[in-house]
């Protein structure tokens, strides 16, 4: 969709002096407009920066897969507990006069002397991975199911919608806990894939609604009249108009997924040891709140930072795609 400059007026004989000066609106593609509005959204920019920082920190510090990171300690290694395991991080230089310090254990240590910074980074990696896999996979599934349902209607629509009705009847945490328990031991990636299989339903409904209204639009009628194939109509004509809804919803799904993973891991149905995640860390260390509160604070702060950033990015994207800002969100 492009906002085109109106055709310049052809001046008549008597009006040769009239220049084309009344239209100063520059042609901008939808992508440019969306980008422009997104950049103007301060919260979204801060969110994007914060999320970027967390992602880079988590993946470079302790490394991932076979690539080593710059942080010397491993999250699995136990060691001697230094200074009662207190964090050595000091970000406020003027309190004890030591200046900005990072120290050996910036986030402290747990009772077995494991470096809590490395543990938190590992938890952040897993939580991020799970959230993004859930977000991407469930968006793909939901968009696909919603598109088929909304575009073709009829029997396909009936089957898909009854199935979403069915899944939506079961509260998400109940469903997730049971499937989480069923795949316990399968590893976090597998867990994420399975969770994606159960939470695509609300997006499917959203996309279906969008497709239902878009397929009645004139430009789709026109494309049909010109004999365009269904696949071409879906991908060239309808999808670009529904993409805003899908992207915004994908972002918000990631925010929900971060919290869902944390809740499941907290209840013990999510990520299983030896692996860890932010939710597991909180669950493991909640009872040491009175003795070592930092073991509780750090993973919580990281969850909130990620979820808050993603929520703000989602808000910015929604404003960018829908400048009327009238769309309400649940």
């Amino acid at each position, binding site marked *: 969709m492009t906002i085109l400059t109106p055709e310049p*007026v052809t001046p008549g*004989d008597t*009006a040769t002096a009239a*220049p*084309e*000066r009344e239209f*100063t609106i520059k042609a901008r593609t939808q992508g440019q407009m969306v980008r422009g509005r997104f950049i103007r959204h301060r919260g979204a920019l801060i969110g994007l920066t914060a999320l970027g920082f967390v992602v880079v920190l988590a993946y470079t510090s302790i490394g991932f897969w076979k690539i080593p990171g710059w942080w010397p300690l491993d999250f699995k290694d136990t060691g001697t507990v230094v200074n009662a395991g207190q964090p050595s991080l000091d970000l406020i230089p003027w309190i004890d006069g030591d200046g900005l310090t990072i120290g050996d254990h910036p986030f402290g240590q747990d009772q077995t002397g494991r470096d809590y910074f490395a543990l938190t980074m590992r938890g952040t990696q897993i939580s991020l991975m799970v959230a993004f896999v859930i977000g991407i996979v469930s968006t793909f599934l939901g968009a696909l199911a919603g598109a088929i349902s909304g575009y073709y209607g009829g029997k396909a629509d009936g089957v898909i919608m009854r199935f979403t009705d069915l899944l939506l009847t079961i509260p998400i945490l109940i469903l997730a806990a049971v499937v989480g328990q069923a795949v316990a031991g399968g590893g976090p990636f597998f867990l994420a894939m399975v969770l994606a299989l159960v939470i695509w339903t609300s997006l499917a409904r959203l996309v279906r609604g969008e497709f239902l209204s878009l397929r009645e639009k004139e430009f789709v009628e026109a494309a049909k009249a010109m004999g365009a194939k269904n696949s071409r109509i879906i991908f060239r004509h309808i999808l670009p108009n529904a993409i805003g809804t899908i992207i915004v919803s994908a972002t918000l799904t990631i925010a929900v997924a971060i919290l869902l993973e944390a809740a499941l891991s907290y209840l013990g149905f999510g990520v299983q040891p030896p692996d860890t995640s932010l939710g597991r860390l909180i669950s493991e260390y909640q009872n040491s709140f009175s003795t070592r509160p930092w073991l509780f604070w750090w993973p919580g702060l990281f969850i909130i930072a990620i979820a808050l950033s993603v929520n703000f990015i989602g808000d910015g994207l929604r404003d960018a795609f829908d400048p009327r800002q009238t769309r309400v969100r649940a």
Partner: protein
Amino acid sequence: MAQEILRVQDLAVSFPTEDGTVHAVRGISYTLHEREVLAIVGESGSGKSVSAMALMGLLPKTAQITGSVNYRDQEVLTLPPKKARAMRGRNIAMVFQDPMTAMNPVYTVGDQLAEAYRSHHRVERKVALAKATEMLDRVGIPQAKDRVRAYPHEFSGGMRQRAMIAMAIINNPDIIIADEPTTALDVTVQAQILETLIEVKDSVNAAVILITHDLGVVAGMAHRVLVMYAGKAVERAEVDEIYTRPRMPYTAGLLGSIPALDSAGGRLHPITGAPPSLINLPPGCPFSPRCPLATEICLHEEPPLGPTDLPHHEAACHHWETLAEVPDPTMLFRSEAGA
């Protein structure tokens, strides 16, 4: 002549937006007399609706309004909110463009009329409902007694607009502002609605400001016409003269776009192009890019609304004299349409 009840002077409205300040109304002046019908004509975006909203105090808070609106020797724009509220609907009432959305879907038509009455008269609900029924009857709604209990969605578009007119006259106002009252309606009911409007206006002795883009609607109704373009009045005259002797090419262009049943060939000659953006309006006459008569001076100097060869007929055009010599002004835009 009847007494003057409303005097608008240099009314200007602008809205700050992200892309710059929109000068929606750039200074218009007019007067309105008792029982008179004044038509304000212009394309969408010419500022005609905004100027009416300014009279009613219905513009959003961000709007910057200057100038003066004098209603029976009272300055309206600076009235304290309470007094302004007491005037709205009581002295100046309004009929809106789209009757489909102008009524609250969750209350009955009767409730909404009664509410309008009760907000200016301290009476019991029953009394107000009886009044509402009477008004619905007066605007020609059959079985008003039953219809008073119906919801807006149970009314047709024409009936809803009648109900809106009934709501406007329920407090016996001095002035009714009708903002494109027939635009959203079927052609078949447009004439009936206009007729109803004239009838009830006479019955309550109100003056009407009729806002429209359709010069065809104006002909049978208005006494005087004010033509607006890009936020300014560009021509002001008695209704007959507008049709026969326009002194502003824009008006001539509007006349050329009315389908007339008696014109041979039946070909329309619309104005090409679109009205300018009201942000950063360039100097000169805003109509010049679309104007067949435009010359060098039109690009540099915006003509003020001034007297012409005809009495009580003012136009804002450097070349009104040239236009006066054109035998059929509606044909002014023909060359381009053919090109």
